[in-house]
């Protein structure tokens, strides 16, 4: 019999649609002490930059209602060291490896992509465009359609690996961003990254995070993620890896119905290190309960194309 959880995406043949989200799983070593990583559909590695980065000062995380803020600041040993020490560790497991590509300049993104292109064990790239472009006044690559398209094109040229562009939700029009990167050659989309937020620490009377602002993640942002995937799905033809607040197999189904082809789980790993495998175990029963033969069978089924009654809230 065929595996009802299997999903085939550019560069990825997934035994199931569940993968840990970038930055919430490190390079897998710690969670490998909790379960066999071969159970995962794929693993998205923590962001890689051209050279080693120490990231932001601490505090780097804050708790919010049904969510959290983080401002890690892309701390990582650099793409070369990651390929030397982390990729081989993950390659020992029977799962797909997705490399999260970041940088401060287009040149840095291209260098990281080129370098990962040499790593046979890396199956695909996730392009993290939620970073400030230092050469253009620090405005995020991911909030400007032209910049996002340009960087997608350059990275595509630099690498033969399929490229999933990770969209930032901090935009007026997510559909325009999605179409721009699709036109620029993206093989898939990954959405959503965190929403920019802040918490002020009353005793010290200043922002709690040393970086002042941080990225909001967790259940709090799920309705925004579902809405954005639902809208984007109706305007692009490339697959979507959906994420944002997922904690349960039912919520995975909600993302599939909204149009995601696979999902990533981030913040929930901190609360429950076993959440990914627990979701994978429960997913078949949930699909059955709601009448779906397979993961693929559910993708986009929740979309009502009639928009006639969309109005002001």
């Amino acid at each position, binding site marked *: 019999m065929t595996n009802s959880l299997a999903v085939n995406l550019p560069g990825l043949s997934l035994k199931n649609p569940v993968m840990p989200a970038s930055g919430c799983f*490190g390079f897998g070593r710690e969670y490998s002490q909790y379960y066999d990583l071969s159970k995962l559909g794929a693993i998205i590695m923590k962001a890689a930059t051209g050279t080693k980065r120490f990231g932001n000062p601490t505090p*780097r995380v804050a*708790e919010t209602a049904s969510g959290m803020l*983080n401002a*890690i600041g892309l701390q990582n040993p650099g793409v070369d060291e990651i390929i030397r020490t982390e990729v081989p560790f993950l390659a020992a497991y029977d799962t797909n490896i997705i490399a999260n590509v970041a940088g401060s300049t287009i040149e840095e993104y291209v260098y990281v992509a080129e370098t990962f292109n040499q790593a046979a064990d890396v199956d695909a790239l996730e392009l993290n465009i939620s970073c400030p472009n230092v050469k253009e006044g620090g405005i995020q690559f991911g909030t400007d359609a032209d910049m996002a398209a340009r960087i997608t094109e350059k990275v595509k040229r630099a690498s033969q690996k399929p490229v999933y562009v990770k969209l930032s939700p901090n935009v007026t029009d997510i559909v325009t961003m999605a179409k721009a990167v699709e036109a620029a050659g993206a093989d898939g989309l990954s959405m959503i990254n965190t929403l920019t937020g802040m918490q002020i620490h009353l005793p010290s009377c200043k922002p709690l995070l040393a970086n002042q602002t941080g990225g909001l993640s967790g259940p709090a942002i799920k309705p925004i993620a579902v809405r954005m995937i639902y809208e984007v799905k109706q305007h692009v033809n490339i697959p979507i890896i959906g994420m944002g607040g997922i904690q349960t197999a039912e919520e995975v189904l909600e993302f599939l119905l909204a149009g995601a082809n696979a999902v990533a789980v981030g913040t929930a790993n*901190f*609360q429950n*290190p076993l959440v990914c495998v627990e979701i994978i175990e429960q997913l078949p029963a949930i699909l059955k309960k709601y009448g779906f033969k397979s993961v693929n069978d559910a993708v986009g089924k929740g979309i009502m194309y009639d928009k006639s009654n969309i109005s002001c809230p």
Partner: protein
Amino acid sequence: MRKKQMMHVSKVTSIALDTVEMVLKNKEVSQTAVPGQFLHIAVPGHTLRRPVSIADVNRDDDTITILFKTIGTGTKELASVKQGSELDVLGPNGNGFPVDTIKPSTVLLIGGGIGVPPLYYLAKSLAEKGCHVISVLGFQTKDYVFYEDQFKAIGKTYIVTDDGSYGHKGLVTDVLSDIGSFETYFSCGPLPMLKAVRHHLKDTPGYLSLEERMGCGIGACYACVIPTNDEVGYKKICQHGPVFKSEEVQL
């Protein structure tokens, strides 16, 4: 494989102002815990777990004691957990104090506020090894003082309060001069205190237990890093710490 541990709450006691003592029962955790390690505790209604030090271990009845101050919503919720219920815990996490490497000798323990708890199990363990343990414990005021008798039962103990409402008035570092010679020191408490302690005792080998806001609590999210003087340049408090050699980290 590591796993989430369910720990049975067998006793909840208020031992000082805003300070709770909780006894948790779980064989696996109690048999493996060493001084300085912590539990990463899931608190109902909260996204992130709360790190709390292991303050004492009783291997005979498989229990672990934690002591915590109710400062915000999470610890208040934790304090309201009823005896008989279960807590979802990750742990024991982190690297504790290097008890095994310490030879019988005179050692100084310096704790401040919520930094005092991990020192109790450390004091007991070092005393068992034949160390002569001297403790300096700092609290805000008289009302916050806890475990004085327990520490005194182990060795000479100085209590210091910010306002002098009990014991010596001032900072823990103010009494260091009164103390004779000792070979090693161990300290846990707020960052300013650790900085002062390290400065005062720069010529003595020492170990510091650090605090930082945490996400995963197991080394995966990079929330809790501390700059170090080695070539790597940083360490993760939840994984490589919370205990570090005093000269190893940049405070």
